[in-house]
């Protein structure tokens, strides 16, 4: 296999790894809590894209059966004609979990902001020390 074919057949994975690295770095290195959450979202998006891309088939159509309802229903279906529907379904579930996590995390961040008045991690640490000493 030549270099060009190798790049064409694998570059989608490289894009997802790059996206995952961006999200991972934001999760670890950023001090702002909202930026951390956004990094987590980028990470999850990379994983979702990766799973959806494993279901693709060259020259196949979206997974909706042609002539599937109406008077003329064809029962003979060629599986190579439609892309793999299972990654789509499972990633739908993953998107639901992602949105729920995002919502709860933002609610927790609002609570933190109400108590400490800031979203930077080091400032929250200093504020918690001050609040502890004041008690």
């Amino acid at each position, binding site marked *: 296999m030549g270099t060009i074919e190798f790049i064409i057949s*694998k*570059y989608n994975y490289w894009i997802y790894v790059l996206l995952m690295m961006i999200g991972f770095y934001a999760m670890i290195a950023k001090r702002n809590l909202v930026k951390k959450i956004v990094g987590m979202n980028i990470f999850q998006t990379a994983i979702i894209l990766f799973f959806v891309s494993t279901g693709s088939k060259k020259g196949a159509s979206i997974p909706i059966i042609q002539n599937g309802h109406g008077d003329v229903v064809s029962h003979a279906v060629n599986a190579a004609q439609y892309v*793999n*529907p*299972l990654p789509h379904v499972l990633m739908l579930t993953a998107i639901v979990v992602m949105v729920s996590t995002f919502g709860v995390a933002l609610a927790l961040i*609002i609570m933190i902001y109400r108590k400490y008045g800031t979203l930077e991690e080091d400032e929250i640490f200093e504020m918690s020390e001050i609040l502890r000493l004041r008690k």
Partner: protein
Amino acid sequence: MRFFALIVVLITGTLLLYATVDMPDWGDPYSPANTHVSPRYIEKTIEETATPNIVTSVLADYRGYDTLGETTVIFTAGVVCILLLRRFK
């Protein structure tokens, strides 16, 4: 700290990039994900569920209980948001 984070991220990324060499090609119809169980869903969905959209038939018919659990997840998240953000008194 930032430097350490960058090192960790680069190591993880390199390992994953190394692993992609063994992954099936993009759009390969004969990759393991496309050959084992998914043709059965594509071929039988009209016969068993009478739904042309395969994603819908798998989500709401074959995996109906999973979707029920998913709505529980959303409900729990909504309840938690209400409990956290409500101002007492």
